[in-house]
Each structure stands twice: as C-alpha cells, then as structure tokens.
C-alpha cells in the first residue's frame, strides 16, 4: 500500500490496514518480559521498570514470573556455566512467539569477565538472541532503545510466506538442547545451529 495514499486517505478519515499490520501492532504493543535478572544489568533493568524510565509505557506492563506467560527474556547479567543450562531450559519453556534480548557485555560475549573459567562467553551460543545491547551496564535509555528495536523487528515480521518467523513455521527449530555439565566445560560448548563458530585461521 502506497504510504502517501494511506496518509491522504487518513486525512479524509479512512483508515486502511492489513491483517499482518494489525497482528504485529497488537503483538509489539504488549511484549511482556520475564522476571529474569542475573547480575548488575538486572539493577538497570529494574530501574527501567520504575517511574523515571517507565518501560510500561512501551507495552511491557508486567514482568511475568512464569516463562509460559512471558514473551520476552531479557538476559541481564553474566551467564555462568553453572547457570547456562537453567537459562536454556527457561528459554525452552517459554511459549512461542518468544524473543530474547542480551543486555550488557556479559550476556553478549562474556564481557569484562571473559577470561573467567566459569563464564559463558555469550548466551547466544545456545539460544537465538534478537537484540544485543552493548554496555556495562547499559543505561535504562539503552534498554528502552533495545525494546523499541525489538518492536520494530516484530513490526516487520511476515505472517505467511518464506520469511515468516519460527513460531508460524511448523518445521522450524523449536527445541534448543540444554547443555550438560562436562568435566571442564559444558557439553556441547555451543549450539552449532544457533551460533556458527567463526573459522579459526591459522
């Protein structure tokens, strides 16, 4: 639909839309995150929910305690290798459509603790992340911008056809294997389907 035509009709009082637009508008305006804070980024996430940087005005009205009722998982904080199976299990238990935001340097790649023996170098080794927010910790405004980026992404998702998201596709991957505790590291160290490891050039 031509944007100018839409605006002209809108001025005359005629509102044109498509089912895809309505569906995505409804979904992006009511993304409910899950109560999931791991470390210092969680404090900034809490600050974002409070009065000054209110995230509820963007649609994240309540933070659900149960993954079944949540749409979004904000992985805020360092993911240790001990906690990683629980994060993956919770992501699996979320009902589709589900989104994940990696908040802070630790969730993206291990952050300042990357050399740690127990630090998982980024949670996107096991689950697909939609938005990464750099920062240590990112300011509440940054989390709000990530939320808006996620909303733009949801707006652009198709309802039918080739590029439709995984929750509308019966054949797409819905189960992300949970890593087990190995002797020194998690088994498997990463999920090859989600995180294609960069090739080592020697």
């Amino acid at each position: 639909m031509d944007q100018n035509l839409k605006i002209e009709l809108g001025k005359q009082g005629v509102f044109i839309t498509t089912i895809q637009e309505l569906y995505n508008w409804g979904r992006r305006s009511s993304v409910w995150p899950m109560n999931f804070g791991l470390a210092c980024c969680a404090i900034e996430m809490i600050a974002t929910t409070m009065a000054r940087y209110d995230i509820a005005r963007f649609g994240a009205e309540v933070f659900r305690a149960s993954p079944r009722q949540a749409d979004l998982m904000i992985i805020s904080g360092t993911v240790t290798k001990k906690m990683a199976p629980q994060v993956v299990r919770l992501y699996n238990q979320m009902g589709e459509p589900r989104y994940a935001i990696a908040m802070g340097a630790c969730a993206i790649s291990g952050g300042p603790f990357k050399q740690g023996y127990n630090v998982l170098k980024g949670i996107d080794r096991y689950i697909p992340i939609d938005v990464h927010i750099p920062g240590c910790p990112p300011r509440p405004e940054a989390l709000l911008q990530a939320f808006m980026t996620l909303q733009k992404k949801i707006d652009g998702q198709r309802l039918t056809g080739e590029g439709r998201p995984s929750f509308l596709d019966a054949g797409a991957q819905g189960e992300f294997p949970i890593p087990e505790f190995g002797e020194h590291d998690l088994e498997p160290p990463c999920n090859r389907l989600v995180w294609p490891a960069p090739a080592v050039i020697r």
Partner: protein
Amino acid sequence: MTSSVYFSLAVLFVVALCFGLTPLALAWLWAKVFAPPKPNALKNATYECGLVSKGDAWIRFHPAYYLYAIIFLIFDVEAVFLLPFAVSFTGLGVAACIAMLVFVLLLIEGLAWAWAKGVLTWA
C-alpha cells in the same frame, strides 16, 4: 413469542453468549490457520525456575494448615449459612431453630479452640 415478558432477556442472553464466544472462536480459527502447535518435551517440562523437577507434586502438607481451614469454616461458610436463616427466622418452627443452634454451637466450639490457641491476636 415476541410478546413474552422474557423475550428481551432471551435476546440479551444470546447476545452476551455471542459476545463471549465469538472472540474465542476467532482465536481458535486464527490458531488453526496461522499458528501451528509446536510442542516438544523441553517446552512441556514442568517449570521449576530452570531446574529439572524430580518426583511428584502430591507432597504432604504441614498439619498446621488445619487452623486456617477451621477459621475459614467459621468466618466464611457459617456466615453464608446464617444469612438465609436470619432472613427466614420468623417463619420457621422450633425444630429448625434447634438444628441451626446445633450447627452454630459446633462452629462456636471451633472458634473457642482457635481463640484458645491464640490465633485471633496479632503476635
């Protein structure tokens, strides 16, 4: 039929039913067309804060909860039963009053127990 006194009520009932059922039907249709169900073992696993849950959920609860059951009986169930009795008090015979007295006395015994246990005062 249009002249019946309850016709407008019937119309209202049908409309209210449709008001409730139509969104459900539309959601079911939408799910059938657009949202394929994708259950798997990990998704349907019991939620326990990310941990693996072992064993049954039918555990034995602490018997201290019996006090809450007694207090609920006295202050909720007895009140509900006393209300119709109070409304039709003057039209009943002696036998009904005696039966009600037995009922109230039993629950007063429970109230006395709870009182003696000290649950009615703030700690």
